[in-house]
């Protein structure tokens, strides 16, 4: 298990301050901004958002678990998203997942022990012409050939 670092509530507060207090419809947005600030959604942050926007906690938890964009557990420094869109699927995306599983020792949704990498699978990132595609944080890696992905990522 990875131990979650303490949550900086000042940062949470600063993100929430950007939104209108008590405006329920900002919930999805606020959670997205919180996630980009702290890279995941700790319990404290969801609670703070629910309170600030006057949303029942169960609704905030429902929203946080419904949408794929949100992670309730800490993630690694580099988030490796393997696109599993149809085009990537038929052009060998599953081999890429396999390569990562063997090379980094983690499967989709998992984070390496040293908190360096999190592997995720996503449904289509809109770069189908370059299939199979991997996105490491903001870097797009196109036309990934079998056996190459781990090296490409580790070399940065």
């Amino acid at each position, binding site marked *: 298990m990875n131990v979650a670092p303490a949550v900086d509530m000042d940062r949470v507060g600063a993100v929430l301050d950007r939104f209108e207090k008590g405006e*329920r*419809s*900002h*919930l*999805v*947005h606020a*959670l*997205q901004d919180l996630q980009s600030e702290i890279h995941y959604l700790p319990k404290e942050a969801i609670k703070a958002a629910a309170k600030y*926007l006057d*949303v029942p906690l169960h*609704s905030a938890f*429902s*929203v946080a678990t*419904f*949408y*794929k*964009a*949100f992670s309730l557990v800490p993630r690694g420094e580099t988030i490796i998203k393997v696109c*599993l*869109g*149809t*085009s990537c*699927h*038929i*052009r*060998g995306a*599953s*081999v890429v997942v*396999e*390569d990562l*599983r*063997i090379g980094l020792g983690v499967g989709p949704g998992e984070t390496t022990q040293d908190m360096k990498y999190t592997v995720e699978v*996503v*449904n*289509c*990132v*809109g*770069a*189908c*012409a*370059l*299939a199979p*595609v991997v996105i490491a944080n*903001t870097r*797009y*890696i*196109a036309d990934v*050939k*079998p*056996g190459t992905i781990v090296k490409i990522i580790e070399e940065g």
Partner: protein
Amino acid sequence: MGIANLKKLEARRSALHKAHENVKTQVRVCSGTGCAALGAFEVYDALVEESKKAGLPVQVELAPCGKDKDPIFVSLTGCQGFCQIGPLVHILPEDILYTGVKVSSVKDIVGKTLADGQVIDKLLYKNPEDKKRLKGRADIPFYKGQELVALEGCGSVAADSLDSYIASGGFSSLAKALKMDPDQVIAEVEKSGLRGRGGGGFPTGRKWRSCVNATGDERFVICNGDEGDPGAFMDCCIMEGDPYRVIEGMIICAHAVGSSTGFIYVRHEYPRAVERLSLAVKTCEENGLLGTKILGSDLNFDISVARGGGAFVCGESTALMRSIEGSVGEPRAKYVRSVQRGFRDKPTVLNNVETFACVPSIINEGSDWFASRGTEKSSGTKAFCLVGKVVNTGLIEVPMGTKLRDVVFGIGGGIIDGRPFKAVQTGGPSGGCLGENYLDLPVDFDALAEAGSMMGSGGMIVMDDRTCMVDVAKYFLNFLMEESCGKCVPCREGVYQLHALLDKLSRGEGEPQDLEKIQRLGKEIQVSSLCGLGKSAPNPVLSTLKNFREEYEAHVNDKRCPAGVCRDITTFTIDPDKCTGCLVCKKACPPDAISGEKKQVHVIDQDKCTQCGACRLVCKFDAVVTS
């Protein structure tokens, strides 16, 4: 500097036109997702830098009062379509299309082409058929047979520049619409025959009219940019490449239906689309194109950009509206339509990005112009993403009614490595797979639906003989199982069971009665589910079962996957006669199951092999065989 009224808009346009006329050379660097991934931004920066260094009069913005003589205008455009061979640099007026441009090629482009007018042969597109280099878009087969309407500005206007959009005629359609009665605007859209490009194909004009006729003190206009179909990225390209066109379409709609509030809902997987749209909205606000008294008329209209949270079901209109309200995206029954009771229970028009992008052209060129394209019941053009095992992949737009064959073999250039064509998948997870006998099908809403597939948002995924139809159906079911909101039983439990049945087949454990079971369950899910996601979820299975039944039967009766994809019933071996001992498969094998020295026949250790197929993917000599 605002554009307070029509006069100011025209003044601005004519100033920009003049600036445009002065431009001697235009250099358009494609910054679509594909090209950007391949380094287009670096190429752009280097181009500007290098041109300056060379003392060329380079401009990065259209300057109405520029002092330079014969300036070179370098811009970042949206997707230019031919993603396969990016990054693309298109040079006008000579129509030179440079492909696969790297930062290292920039020096040559500046020194030879921009400074000296020479064409650099090795950067041109090489036609795979005769290995001849082709100079520009006019010569390249991929671009022939295409007709751009919704994608007109995508790849030509500078994506983040309002001026560039105005110079290309932007907002002239709005200006025209504002002089028309709202009813006339709707009548034009009705007459054009425009149908919703998001999938269902509902007549757009009729939708707008129902919204006007619905009772309510407030109306909303929502643009659906939650393009969730895997294998489709048209809307992404339009939002990134021509955001002002989408906004213009929405403002025209607001004028037509009497709305003052709009939303654009963009999926979070498209960060650049969110960024460019937000910037475009802000720029429009600053220039008086959004806000109060737009262009001096009585129209007040605001747009907010809402980011999706990553849920395919939010492409469904009622779920999308729930999501903008800040809730879980669960659809509701549509016995009362959302044009009557939609967002916040008020009458709401919801169209997708491409639909709104067609509107400015319809108003500007007239409904007859639009209706004269396409087929009788599906007028106009349609953007598609041509992807999969096809030679030329990318973003295309063709008149409705174009034959599948012309798309796949004409524009697409046929199948990779000359392998046999097997099927083309349209309509994403709600669509189906059409085999060879459908190649002469004219692509429009009704023809696709009749063939058991659907238009969907426009993904077109080409498959060869190494694609297993059971695997494809299973893939979509797995996708839908994860994306189902889980509210209603047929979708939540039924899709799960369908997936379980297909999984059984792919493991070689299928029983003869399973095919009947799949068929029956699929049909019941179609009629019993709550929303469009569930109702269409069985389509990929039912269509492949109908069109590729032998392949299903091979899985059940012979416990064999003819395409060599389903791992549990496939064995990979190396044909010693074909193997050249090149080591490529050995290097690619994830579990290190391949042994063999250079120039000696390689062998796969069956105990170690995980049947992932990596070796077959990389082998250039067709030496990896499956059984």
